[in-house]
């Protein structure tokens, strides 16, 4: 155990030097590190949000809304088709968000109705192997003229998947608009999005932006009835009663036609601006949108046009003249901030489904800074105390263990930098804990050496036997902690994962330093001094 081949010595020293080299960038400022030549290591330890401050938002895409939306649009199409063919029906509607149900009055026309409905399915793209394809709906006949329409499993899967992917894209655009540094937006699981925003002081604005679906539609007000009538339940078919988009209670309501003339999908730009000193939002359509907008304004001069965002009426100005240029402004009771936000939302586009915040963790920069300094002090103090203790207990051998501990810290820091693993507050705790536990391997060896000495072995033989006998114990003991760390990493989230990472790295590096580095030092010392007794 005490003989080291030259290449082994070189390897051990090489690893130690690498640890120091990879740790080095952490001692200079971030900017200096960034300017280092590319052949030098320049990665710094990645600080978790709990240390550098920032926001962690876990969002869920409410994918069921996409399915409901498709079913509702099917209801509209089925109504139109059946009416066109003069087929009598009752009870048309969406049942439990799963299917569209309709009962055909005349039994002999059920087949014809089913045929009509079947044609309403949208074609689906076949997969890579040319499988699938077909349409997205299944039409089935029940008893007594009942017809149910469901989406195929594949269609549901495709729609949900597309909704999540599109949502991630829209979330990214909205977050980018706000201009935070290095946001991270990742998909998590089936229908979740994890947004991490380092350094964000006030995540409220981002939450507000992400909380809106931002479906913008231009529709006409229904002037054939009054709001009072509608409140009593007399809403003409094809119209709905919508509230105004303000925070105030008892806000105005509007009866709005369901038909959408132009929607936000056709917008190409949107900017906050001022009109007669008030904040407004200007917009510009693409050519199709511009044409449709021109047509509707031309045909309806003098009538009010409702601008609807997420089912709430922003404003319903009178159309004074046809707007043919494809651009216009949205007026409303906006503050400057609200006008800004609306412009951002319109530029970034609408979310396919609403987002729900499942989890939010925001840490202010001062708490993060406090945690770092507390962690540093605790680390240094623990380190010094353990080093003194080891030196007192094992003398020269203790000093060897102390040097190994120093190398160990350099290796942990180097590994964290190279792997770009995230250091969190529990992660710092993991390092401090490692300081305490890392010496365990050396304690095992040194105690064993003492025992061997008591049996009358020569120093050389005692050290040799001490290392050899302690080795299996050391490995057995450390594997158990490593198992715990792996499980923590697998099942933990956020900061706890950071703890698992430092704990696991700490175990591996401490095994290396305690077994190899101290052994190298002690064997060199034994060779040079050839002591008659061991100072242990």
């Amino acid at each position, binding site marked *: *155990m005490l003989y080291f081949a030259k290449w082994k010595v070189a390897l051990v020293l090489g690893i130690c030097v690498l640890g120091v080299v990879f740790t080095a960038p952490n001692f200079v400022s971030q900017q200096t590190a960034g300017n280092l030549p590319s052949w030098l290591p320049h990665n710094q330890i990645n600080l978790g949000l709990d240390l550098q401050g920032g926001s962690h938002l876990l969002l869920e895409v409410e994918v069921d809304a996409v399915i409901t939306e498709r079913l509702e649009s099917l209801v509209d199409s089925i109504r139109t088709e059946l009416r066109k063919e003069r087929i009598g029906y009752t009870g048309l509607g969406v049942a439990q968000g799963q299917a569209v149900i309709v009962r055909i009055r005349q039994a002999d026309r059920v087949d014809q109705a089913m045929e009509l409905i079947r044609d309403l399915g949208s074609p689906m793209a076949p997969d890579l192997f040319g499988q699938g394809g077909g349409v997205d709906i299944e039409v089935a006949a029940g008893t007594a003229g009942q017809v149910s329409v469901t989406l195929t499993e594949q269609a549901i899967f495709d729609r949900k998947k597309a909704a999540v992917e599109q949502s991630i894209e829209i979330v990214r655009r909205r977050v980018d608009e706000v201009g935070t540094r290095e946001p991270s937006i990742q998909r998590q699981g089936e229908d979740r999005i994890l947004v991490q925003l380092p350094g964000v002081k006030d995540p409220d604005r981002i939450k507000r932006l992400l909380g809106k679906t931002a479906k913008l539609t231009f529709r006409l007000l229904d002037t054939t009835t009054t709001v009072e009538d509608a409140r009593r339940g007399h809403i003409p078919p094809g119209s709905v009663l919508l509230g105004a988009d303000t925070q105030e209670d008892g806000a105005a309501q509007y009866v709005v036609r369901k038909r959408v003339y132009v929607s936000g999908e056709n917008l190409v730009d949107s900017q906050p601006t001022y009109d007669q000193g008030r904040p407004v939002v200007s917009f510009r359509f693409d050519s199709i949108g511009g044409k449709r907008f021109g047509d509707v304004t031309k045909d309806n001069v003098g009538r009010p046009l409702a601008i609807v965002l997420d089912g709430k009426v922003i404003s319903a100005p009178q159309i004074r003249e046809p707007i043919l240029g494809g651009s216009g402004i949205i007026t409303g009771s906006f503050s400057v901030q609200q006008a800004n936000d609306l412009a951002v939302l319109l530029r970034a586009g609408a979310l396919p489904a609403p987002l729900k915040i499942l989890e939010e963790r925001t840490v*202010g920069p001062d708490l993060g800074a406090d945690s770092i300094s507390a962690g540093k002090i*605790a680390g240094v103090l623990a380190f010094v105390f353990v080093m003194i*203790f080891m030196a007192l207990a094992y003398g020269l051998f203790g000093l060897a263990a102390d040097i190994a501990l120093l190398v160990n810290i350099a290796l942990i820091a180097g590994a964290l930098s190279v792997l770009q693993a995230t250091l969190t507050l529990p992660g710092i705790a993991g390092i401090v804990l490692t300081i305490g536990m890392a010496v365990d391997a050396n304690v095992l060896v040194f105690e064993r050496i*003492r025992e061997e000495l008591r049996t009358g072995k020569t120093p050389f033989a005692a050290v040799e036997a001490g290392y050899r006998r302690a080795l299996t114990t050391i490995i057995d003991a450390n594997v*158990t902690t490593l198992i715990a760390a792996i*499980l923590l990493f697998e099942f933990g989230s956020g900061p706890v994962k950071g703890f698992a990472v430092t*704990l696991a790295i700490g175990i591996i590096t401490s095994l290396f330093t305690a077994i190899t580095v101290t052994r190298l030092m002690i064997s060199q010392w034994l060779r040079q001094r050839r002591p008659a007794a061991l100072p242990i």
Partner: protein
Amino acid sequence: MIRLRLVPAKTNIGFLTQHIRAFFLSGFLCVASIGYFLWADLNYGIDFEGGILIEVGTPGPADISQMRSALSGLNLGEIALQEFGRNTEVLIRVERQPGDSAAQQLAVAAVKEALAKEITGEISYRRVEYVGPKVSAELVRAGTLASVLAVVAMLVYIWFRFEWQFAVGAVLALVHDVVLTIGIFSLTRLEFNLSIIAAILTIVGYSVNDTVVVYDRIRENLRKYRRMPLKELLNVSINDTLSRTTMTSVTTLIALLTLYVVGGAVIEGFTFAMIWGVLVGTYSSIFVAAPLLLYVGLGRDVSESGPSEDKGAAADAG
């Protein structure tokens, strides 16, 4: 040269004469922990119960009762305030608001507004956390699963490396440590959150680590002293490793105590759990794990089945 020795170089303490008492003590503490846990449950943090947590930094020493009365008028349900680390820091916990995420945000905004009215000077919001019911349920599941898997993994590993009797002893000792940790958290009403699960898993690792070292020596001595009665052999093994057990516990405790004192309030719960776990783990590997081997039918043939494998390992190591 004078060396710091926690225990004399060669001890012969009769641990195994006390083991019945130790069993009673441990058994009593385990039953008490489980009973108290069933009766009083744990003080779950928002990680597991859902809800809103706000850590506020006030310009001067915070008047908690004044803040409490300001917030209780908001109709947000149960609100808990506590000083956190320093007297200028207050932790506010608000129960989860009925409704969607917008309702939670409104509650946070209402708290901020009420505090701004009540406190002169700038308030810093050091931490704002919200955990929804879906996520908290998942965290409970993941935490439980991880803990159970950790125990099973230890069982399998020790079974693989030793004999099944050792695995049983180690796992009983480790369950003992986890149960007592849960008991102390139930008793002290300290917040039980995700970092405590991390601490428990680390305790699992540490406890087994400690036990393995003693077991390793028992296995070695089983081969060395073929005629020695098992009880005496266990006692010798514990005494052989006593110096190491105390040294490692002390260095780990030095690090943990430093962290507890200067590490800040955020990880206080974690370090408290770890300190407790190290103390209990050290106790259990001496007084629970080793004496248990008397009762699990550990035959002397254990030493026969081992050698070939051990020689291989020793040869590799050499």
